[in-house]
């Protein structure tokens, strides 16, 4: 049950947050980078969901995904603080 929770909502959140982070840190034209990050985010969601079931325990999956999402969220937040949005 914990794994399902980790895989579905958390997996989506991790993919989305890394999509945001990538959209912030990749170099290039903003609109193009935004699209590229969106395209990649779906794969990241899938890998996060797979990891949720591959981890040794449900808790472990939960915490690592939370940490990964937090990291991406922090990158996004800091980057927006520094350079702002369009």
């Amino acid at each position, binding site marked *: 049950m914990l794994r399902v929770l980790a895989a579905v909502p958390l997996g989506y959140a991790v993919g989305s947050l890394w999509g945001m982070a990538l959209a912030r840190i990749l170099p290039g034209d*903003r609109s193009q980078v935004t699209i590229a990050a969106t395209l990649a985010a779906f794969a990241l969601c899938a890998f996060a969901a797979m990891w949720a079931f591959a981890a040794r325990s449900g808790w472990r999956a939960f915490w690592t995904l939370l940490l990964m999402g937090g990291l991406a969220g922090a990158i996004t937040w800091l980057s927006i603080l520094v350079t702002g949005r369009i």
Partner: protein
Amino acid sequence: MSKSFRQSQSFLHTWSGLVLGWLLFFIFAAGTIAFWREGLNRWMRPELPRVEQPEVVLAGAQRFLQGKAPDAKSWFITMPSDRLPGAQIFWQPQPKEGEKPRRRRGRDTQALIGASGDAVTARDTRGGEFFYRFHFDLHYVPVIWARWLVGLAAMMMLVAILSGIVTHKKIFKDFFTLRRGKGQRSWLDGHNATAVLALPFHLMITYTGLVTLMAMLMPWAIVANYAERDRFYDAVFAEPEAVERANQPAPLVNLVGVVRDAEKRLGGPIGYIDISEPGDSSARITLSRSGTSMLSARVPSLVYDGASGRMLWQSPEPGGATVTAGAMVGLHAGRFADAGLRWIYFLCGVAGSVMVASGMVLWVVKRREKLPDPARPHFGFRLVERSNVGILAGFPLGTACMFWANRLLPVGMQDRAQWEVHTLFLAIAFSIIYACVRRPAQAWVALLGATGALLCALPVYNMVGTPSGLFAMIAQGDYVMAGADLTVFVFGLAFGAVALRVSRYRPAEKRKRAARSVPATAMPALEPAE
């Protein structure tokens, strides 16, 4: 990690597949049929002759609109071609003072211009559009909910495919293994063969399917970079500056000439024509290239002055990521594909539908052996088993019934197009009820057999009851219509063959092995159980 990793992924594969399996089956099967969307649009209006001269139709469309809505706010014309039933046109009246412009296209502001260049009325049907819409909008549910649900199913599918790859360590060996008539093994082999055969297709179609809905499913990267969404869209989809209506009458140039010029400049056929303020000196004609002529779904467009016919604006070269996303959407829809490639798309889609269906059946077959008391399975097991029959056999039956409804419902019937669609779902509802009151083995045979008979009889009816029977169409060289008839017939035979195999199957109970009374039919790998 290898063994436990694989086991964990096996569990994930089974459950992510099961939870949304039936929905995925609908999506896959409807999407597969939707590859013939344009063909079905014609086939389901058999009274309309084929468009031979698109320019005659286009000129007719302009004539019609000039007579019907000379001072409309805008006109919209789908460029006719021999693949379409004609030119579908819409117009939007000038908004009245203080009234919000109508966003939905009303019935009273559209028409179909047929091969002769005059407005025609065909039977009211949604044609292939139904399958296209049902594929991602479902039916009877609000569109937004449906798309989220479909998006979730697609995500599950992606996970199921990836974990499925991990689960099958002997992926290539498995592909060449098809143990016929061996119950569970056969189902597993069938599942593997259809999955691996078209694996690149499944992976591609699932991922690109997510991309088609990306603005809704994954808006977060846009949020990260843009304070306002519109700025992102402005940056990606450049548009010419809007012009105010001048209120000076000026006749619209001949659209045929503009289309010829635009096709030369864009290097391919035109798909859509949009005219704003026709008959005014501020008229603008926007033409976009047809998605059938290029891979990317982000088609370039041109804007012409409506009064002088001069080209005013050209859509800028799209960026690399835009083209990538556009190509992914294009790959998904397969509109660019010519007849041969379209068939490969279709067959891969059939394989995908069989993959989902056989996976669902496999779930039942596998668990039956492990039941504590196989004669009296628990409720959850029975639910999946019966729903499998009702849904997996019900959708093909429903489709066959819908095609018949398209032929038989009276032309003057109120909400006729809606009732064609209701017929499909009534047949599925009937199938589910039938599956609940009969033994599964019986229900499979009856439903699949009925589907086969209905499909096989359709081309025969078409020869008698419509002007576009098989031989007439072959004689005219109209292979869209003839091909649809033949395809329906072949599918009818295939469903009949599967029904026959199921009816002849004798479960291996007598062999002192675990009782299995499920009809493990040893379905050959490519039997279209769409």
